[in-house]
């Protein structure tokens, strides 16, 4: 094993000591402006297969224990929040469709989504307000956070399980679009509880 150079050691120590994940820019700033990309790549390769791994989540880097050791490390008292079904579905919809308005979440779920559900996801730090959609009523739109990616071990949203297949199957397109595509016709009468276009709540 060749000894790591000073920059690699510095990046390693910085990430190891940091209380939160760091972007490459933050590491660079901490190290006086050094170029750290290749050091990060070298470190990630070095730690591959070890008990600790260096991972990138939403542009931020951190060390974490290897996933396959979960059975050894899992603690008796899980401090991970267990989500309700409503919150899980809402989270999945935000993650796969982001940015989405609450009306769009409700359109997919076919049921009104309590304000508290989104609050829980925001409190967990997984969902954030991502502005307003520039349509009448200017509804608030929501998106996921880097903490969401870190929590679910996703490097980026492209890592969301099955997202490519869902997109290819058109399942991330609104019903109206899919319907228009399949029938080539105009939108007609809709069933009950169909998409509410306006953010009424």
């Amino acid at each position, binding site marked *: 094993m060749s000894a790591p150079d000073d920059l690699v050691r510095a990046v390693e120590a*910085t990430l*190891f*000591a*940091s*209380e939160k994940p760091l972007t490459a820019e933050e590491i660079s700033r901490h190290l006086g402006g050094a170029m750290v990309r290749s050091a990060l790549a070298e470190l990630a390769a070095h730690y591959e297969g070890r008990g600790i791994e260096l991972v990138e989540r939403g542009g931020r880097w951190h*060390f*974490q224990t*290897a*996933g396959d050791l*979960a059975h050894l490390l*899992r603690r008796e008292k*899980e*401090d*991970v929040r*267990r*989500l*309700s*079904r*409503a*919150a*899980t*579905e809402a989270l*999945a*919809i935000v993650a*796969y469709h982001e940015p989405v308005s609450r009306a769009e979440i409700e359109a*997919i*779920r*076919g*049921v*009104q*989504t*309590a304000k*508290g*559900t989104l*609050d*829980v996801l925001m409190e967990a730090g997984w969902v954030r307000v991502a502005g307003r959609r520039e349509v009448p009523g200017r509804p608030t739109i929501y998106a996921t956070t880097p903490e969401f990616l*870190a929590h*679910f*071990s*996703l490097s980026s949203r492209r890592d*969301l*399980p*099955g997202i490519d297949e*869902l997109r290819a*199957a058109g*399942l*991330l397109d609104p*019903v109206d679009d899919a*319907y228009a595509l*399949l*029938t080539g*016709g*105009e939108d*007609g*009468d*809709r*069933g*009950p*509880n*169909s998409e509410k276009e306006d953010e009424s709540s």
Partner: protein
Amino acid sequence: MEEAASPSSLFDGDEVWDGLPASAPARDDAALYLELENWEGPLDLLLDLARRQKVDLRTISILDLVDQYLGYIDRAEAMRLELAADYLVMAAWLAYLKSLLLLPRDPEMQPSPEELALRLQLRLQRLGAMREAGARLMGRDRLGRDVFLRAAPEGLRVDRRHRWTCDLFDVIQAYGAVKARTAPVVHMVRERAVMTLESALSRVAALLGTSLEWQDLRSFLPPRAEPGWEDPMLRRSALASSFVAALELAKQGKAEILQDETFGPILVRALAA
């Protein structure tokens, strides 16, 4: 239908749901109805019934699904379960859809019953996709459950240090300002011609004599023609001294003073002894 969800109850141990609903295994009806509260609206119930067909959502029979849903609602009503309005609205719409699908086709109808059924199917697919995605998400390695961060990091600290700057001009200017600000202040009173109180007193007393007529105080001043008395400063001094002299005479009971209005002429006359 509003979820009765407060933030805390969402994480409550009783109603946890951390993956696919436990609907896959076939159950007897009684168990099915007990789950009623667990469904999040009619679409959710329809999706669950569709999954019981154990076929791909793209190939489900909407007619079968409608029958199952209506049968479910009928039996729930028979068991006197309270059904939220959404379920009944959906039941009515599905019954209508079923009749359209079974009756001879009206070619004028837009959209066609098949298209309505397709729309329902698309919605079920989308909900199904998201439910599955949520389950797969929850099954990933999760931070704090499966993978862990370093528990006791040293932490990175940035100590801020000030580097002070100042230039020489500022220092010198500041010193100049201090010296100027605190330099002893000397007050100089200029010497000038005045009419003393003594001379005013004797002059006013003499001019007043024993006249009982009111006279303007200003008439007691020496005339401008007299040498030196054209100086306005001296005249102001004389007026002030004469006024004080008049006050003194009034105090001694030798004169009285009258002023009709504020800033009006001051009148003086001798008081009969």
